[in-house]
């Protein structure tokens, strides 16, 4: 085959990488050492950051794209895909991350948004993942070109309650579409504030057209298996690993629980003696302005 006839950055190629990550764990890392621990533990990808969400929360102020030198060092250090976060709507941060060779960009509510408009993701060769609390948000992001969706959860809290809510809401709204009469779908699209063609596709297939991971508050192997049993395709673990007492052991345990998510005996086995989990935050105690999930709807 002559490679000049090949096409890059197509929808299939972008969605395809997310398909390969399914059943796996994507771990937040802030340096090369953590990236190597994650790869060694069986992570399917790493998210290169300057600070994990719990520290972004504690630090306050404006949270921006990581320093390119951190991203580049991590890109060079591991063989697995590297993701990085841009601010919502900050298409120049996304251009910079693409130029650094990252494999996926997370247009993320964990950083401070710069625009009510999200990035026009169709303009990029690199694929994007975006957070969603419900089906309407997911379909708006897919309409903008996202090739992968994740729950928003409430990042940096170590509390999985919000991710559970978001996944249940998504499942409920998808199920509802599948039982509607065809001439009820336009009103459903209006209600969801979502593109009609995507609503119509989901009514037929009963599933999102892209991979959907869990994210936001996952701290234990059982949290991960819970999200998998609720129908997620895989999990992101942010602060939960490197803010815990023994990151390498916890990382391996979460990877195993994600593969054997239906096997309670195996989850029990890997959950033994993991050391201290990250200290959690009860989401209801967060003031409204600190709720990251309400950014970028």
């Amino acid at each position, binding site marked *: *085959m*002559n*490679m*000049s*006839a*090949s*096409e*890059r*950055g*197509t929808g*299939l*190629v972008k969605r*395809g*990488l997310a*398909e*390969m*990550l*399914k*059943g*796996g764990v994507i771990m937040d890392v802030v340096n090369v050492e953590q990236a190597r621990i994650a*790869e060694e*533990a*069986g*992570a*399917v*990808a790493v998210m290169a950051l300057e600070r994990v969400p719990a520290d972004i929360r504690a630090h306050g102020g404006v949270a921006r794209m990581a320093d390119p030198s951190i991203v580049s060092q991590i*890109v060079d250090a591991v*063989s*697995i*895909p590297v993701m990085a976060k841009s601010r919502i709507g900050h298409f120049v941060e996304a251009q910079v991350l*693409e130029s650094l*060779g*990252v*494999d*996926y960009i997370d247009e993320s509510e964990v950083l401070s948004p710069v625009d009510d408009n999200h990035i026009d993701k169709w303009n990029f*060769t*690199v*694929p994007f993942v975006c957070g969603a609390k419900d089906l309407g948000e997911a379909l708006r992001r897919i309409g903008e070109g996202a090739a992968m969706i994740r729950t928003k959860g409430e990042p940096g809290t170590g509390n999985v309650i919000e991710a559970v809510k978001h996944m249940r809401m998504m499942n409920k709204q998808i199920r509802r579409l599948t039982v509607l009469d065809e001439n009820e779908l336009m009103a459903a699209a209006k209600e969801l504030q979502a593109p009609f063609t995507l609503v119509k596709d989901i009514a037929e297939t009963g599933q999102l057209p892209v991979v959907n991971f869990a994210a936001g508050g996952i701290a234990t192997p059982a949290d991960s298996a819970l999200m998998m049993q609720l129908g997620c395709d895989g999990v992101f673990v942010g602060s939960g690993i490197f803010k815990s007492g023994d990151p390498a052991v916890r990382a391996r345990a979460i*990877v*195993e629980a994600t*593969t*054997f998510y239906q096997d309670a005996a195996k989850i029990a086995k890997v959950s033994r003696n993991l050391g201290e989990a990250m200290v959690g935050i009860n989401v209801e105690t967060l003031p409204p302005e600190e709720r990251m999930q309400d950014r970028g709807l």
Partner: protein
Amino acid sequence: MMIGALALQGDFREHLVMVRRLGAEGIEVRTPEELDSIDALIIPGGESTAIGRLATIYGLIEPIQQRINDGMPVLGTCAGMIFLAAATVSYEQPQLRVLDVVVERNAFGRQVDSFEADLDVCGLDDPVHAVFIRAPWIHKVGAEVDVLASVVEPGSMQEHPVFVRQGRILATSFHPELTDDTRIHELLMEVG
């Protein structure tokens, strides 16, 4: 015919959809007991380091090697090809070492270099529409290995195999399971 897909991580469900479309039974394989019940195995796309590590700690490496050495047909796609191979250029990772090739991981580059294209395959009349995602290619083939398809590297004009067969072992760099084309899966069912 009962076909198993190694379900440690990756796109094993897409493979099972393909084999069910062809009228075979498809099951997810995570344990040596499940491995015993199948007639052929598919090792899916995914991350080869994650699949290799999980296969090692859950005691699957030797049972899979044994079944393949006893003649069970197997198809590996992308990460599956890497896992079947004898060695990997510049990485040390768990591998089955049943397919006599050396693979180069991420040979085409990073995700922005991933692509889809039509690929001519020996023995098939029409080209296969092949999807390459952070794909490996084969750096070196052993004497018993037949090359069924190759790509030509721009610049050096060197040919690199992306679809090979060694007896009942089939391996592709690309992902037939992401398309509607069932011909590669049909080959797996025919070699058995």
